[in-house]
């Protein structure tokens, strides 16, 4: 039956059909739904888990592969940076059961801190790479990726992008081919990468590359679509669809689905068969560099933009600059921006509000909902680099401050899931190197930004089983934070929050503040707080608008009065506690 599926659903489905046994990931947009969909197959032969970070996910999948299972690890592009260490060495060891590593890149930066093109990871690590263009190819190619992995004894990088992950296209599904977990045979020369063994494996890796080059020339994943005209286009991934939209069936295409190693002969033959050669790809000139290195003249980067994702009109403007302006309408109006904000009733708001009162606190931020501490009117956050960098970056910032004889106090702000991911190593660094920073773990009991995934603090696994719940306070103490330097606070209680922030500000040793209120969007929380509302007592309100400083989207100033939107308010009372005239009242 024809079904319409996102690329992520189709990748999960294809992996399952391929007889997948083990899957691991850390959630990250746009890759998250791959594992969420694989978890649906828990009673049909697949074990799935959220790993504490991407390095752990890849290592766990590698362990499963060595034991003989077909294994998959998925992550967003920046996750592969975290997992780069095992990734490079796995090129040497190879696999036992098929091993596929999914990198979901984010051209256009829809929800990421950079726009890196992870195709270069394949050539850098010397790992075979497969790139689908739509959901059907996600399903078909991931199956082929497992075959490649086992046949050539290599991990395979399965590279997708946001538009593929989150677009739905038609898919013909198939049945699962059940596979036994392969037998494991101890082989230290293959799986123990001590220098002497690694040196021998490098030789094997070189031989494998030669074999993969042969495969690249013959696989139907790299196909030519012959058109009626004289223009030829080399392309891969989503760019193929945009190129096809603009150039239609007139152009010829060398559509590359197996993109490392690239097929030299196929490219030469294709180039020779057309009069004009274009390379159409987004972000980096990965294919183009290769084509040019072969001494083949082509046009790509000098016309295509370096930044942002490709779209049909960007391709059109690049290659047909004289074509008529696109239709379209416009009106003369100043359109206000609509940036993302902390939700109405968000548990992080009170904490940011209190920290914002100090002008000499530097807030090193992190990746997650609390990144939104940058948004006005809260505007407290100074830095956001990558997962975990709030804490370790905070250590460095503080050391520099001390060296310069300055006085800024560093507050590192990190979520629960991110703390487990890579904040804990920074905390250990702060303790051992005696950096008196304040680590603020905004524990909202869920991985919120990516849409509510379980993490080590929630007490549940991805497949829905109850499990051990890691105690953050005990964990911090085990890292060496003194008990008297730890505060657990309800961030809805501004007085308690104020006291804790003050204590942290004045502390001369590493200090930890842990907030203990769960995300306001967790279903049980929504249900529990359904009848809690705040409203404005108009007689007392002097319209000083201080309540607007909380930056809560439920609190409005319209038509000369302040009012609170009942539909979105959850009665958190942060605005009520800010109001100096006690003009905000709570019910429920």
């Amino acid at each position, binding site marked *: 039956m*024809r*079904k*319409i599926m996102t690329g992520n659903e189709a990748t999960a489905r294809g992996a399952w059909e391929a007889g997948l046994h083990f899957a691991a990931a850390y959630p990250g947009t*746009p890759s998250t739904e791959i594992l969420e969909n694989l978890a649906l197959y828990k009673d049909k032969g697949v074990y799935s888990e959220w790993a504490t970070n991407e390095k752990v996910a890849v290592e766990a999948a590698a362990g499963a592969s060595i034991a003989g299972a077909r294994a998959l690890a998925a992550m967003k592009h920046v996750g592969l940076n975290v997992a780069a260490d095992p990734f490079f060495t796995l090129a040497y060891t190879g696999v036992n059961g098929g091993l596929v590593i999914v990198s979901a890149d984010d051209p256009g930066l*829809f*929800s990421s801190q950079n726009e890196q093109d992870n195709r270069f990871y394949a050539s850098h690590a010397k790992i075979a790479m497969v790139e689908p263009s*739509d959901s059907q190819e996600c399903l078909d190619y991931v199956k082929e990726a497992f075959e490649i992995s086992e046949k050539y004894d290599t991990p395979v990088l399965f590279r997708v992008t*946001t*538009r593929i992950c*989150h*677009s*739905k*296209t*038609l898919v013909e599904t198939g049945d699962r081919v059940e596979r036994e977990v392969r037998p494991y045979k101890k082989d230290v020369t293959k799986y123990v990468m001590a220098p002497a063994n690694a040196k021998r494996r490098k030789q094997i890796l070189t031989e494998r590359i030669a074999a993969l080059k042969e495969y690249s020339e013959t696989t139907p994943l790299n196909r030519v679509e012959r058109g009626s005209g004289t223009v030829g286009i080399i392309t891969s991934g*989503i760019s193929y*669809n*945009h190129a*096809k*939209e*603009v*150039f*239609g*069936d*007139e152009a010829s295409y060398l559509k590359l689905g197996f993109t490392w190693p690239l097929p030299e002969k196929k490219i030469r033959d294709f180039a020779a068969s057309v009069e004009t050669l274009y390379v159409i790809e987004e972000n980096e000139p990965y294919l183009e560099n290769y084509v040019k290195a072969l001494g083949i003249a082509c046009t790509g980067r000098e016309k295509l933009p370096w930044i942002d994702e490709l*779209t*049909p*009109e960007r391709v*059109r403007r690049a290659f*047909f600059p004289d074509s008529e302006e*696109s*239709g*379209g*309408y*416009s*009106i*003369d*109006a*100043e*359109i*206000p*921006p*609509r*940036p*993302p*904000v*902390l*939700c109405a009733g968000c548990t992080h708001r009170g904490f940011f509000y209190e920290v914002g009162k100090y002008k000499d606190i530097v807030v090193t931020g992190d990746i997650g*909902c609390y990144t*939104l501490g940058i948004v*006005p*009117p809260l505007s407290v956050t100074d830095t956001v680099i990558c997962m975990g960098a709030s804490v370790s970056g905070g250590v460095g910032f503080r050391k520099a401050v001390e060296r310069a004889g300055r006085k800024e106090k560093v507050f590192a702000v990190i979520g629960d899931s991110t703390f487990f991911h890579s904040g804990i190593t920074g905390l250990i660094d702060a303790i051992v190197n005696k950096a008196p920073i304040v680590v603020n773990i905004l524990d909202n009991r869920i991985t919120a*930004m990516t849409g509510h995934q379980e993490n080590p603090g929630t007490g549940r696994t991805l497949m829905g089983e109850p499990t051990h719940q890691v105690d953050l306070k005990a964990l911090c103490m085990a890292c060496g934070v003194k008990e008297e330097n730890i505060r657990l606070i309800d961030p809805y209680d501004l007085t308690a929050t104020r006291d804790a922030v003050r204590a942290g500000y004045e502390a001369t040793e590493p200090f930890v503040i842990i907030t203990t209120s769960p995300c306001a969007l967790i279903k049980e929380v929504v249900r529990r707080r359904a009848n809690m509302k705040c409203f404005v007592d108009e007689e007392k309100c002097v319209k000083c608008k201080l309540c*607007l400083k909380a*930056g809560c*989207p439920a*609190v*409005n*100033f*319209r038509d000369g009065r302040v009012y609170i939107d009942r*539909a979105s308010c959850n009665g958190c009372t942060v605005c009520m506690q800010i109001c100096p005239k006690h003009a905000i009242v709570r019910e429920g």
Partner: protein
Amino acid sequence: MKKNDTKSILLVGVGGQGTILASKILSEGLVRKGYDVKMSEIHGMSQRGGSVTTHVRYGSKVASPVVPEGEADVLVAFEKVEAARWLQYLKKGGTLVVNDFEIYSLPVLTGAAKYPEGVTEKLRAAVPNTKVFNAGEIASSLGNIKAQNIVLLGALVKAMGLEDLDWEDVLKELIPEKLLDLNLKAFRAGLEQ
């Protein structure tokens, strides 16, 4: 450059308004009708009050999942400022469906930006085929404002001339049973717009 039979629809709104569910129902219906269908959604941080866009394209063979600027046959705006934000995607002669509904973004709430006045009038003046109605009010009168997305879906189906399909059957499949009655009414109300 090629011309083909691909039709393009752009649905725009604010996180939480149900644009993605409406697009999902639309796509499912189009698949049943035998079209090649591609749908692309952009979310991520948008559930926290940002703008949400979904592209739906159908025809005998669709290439890109993204609607090119100036090529949408219909632009459905779940919020009226969002109509203005995405207007350049609507092709000349295309239909604009606008929910006469305001959602203030935080910069507007805090006074850092202004919600523009007279947007609806300007939209009407710019686009000959403009339909404006308050889907939020219609859905509220039927029992729940959350069904405004299905009211808009009904209006979209009419604008595209896609009434000859068993949409109620698609709704039955994709809407939880206890909300089905409300949504069927909302869909019919949308068809009348």
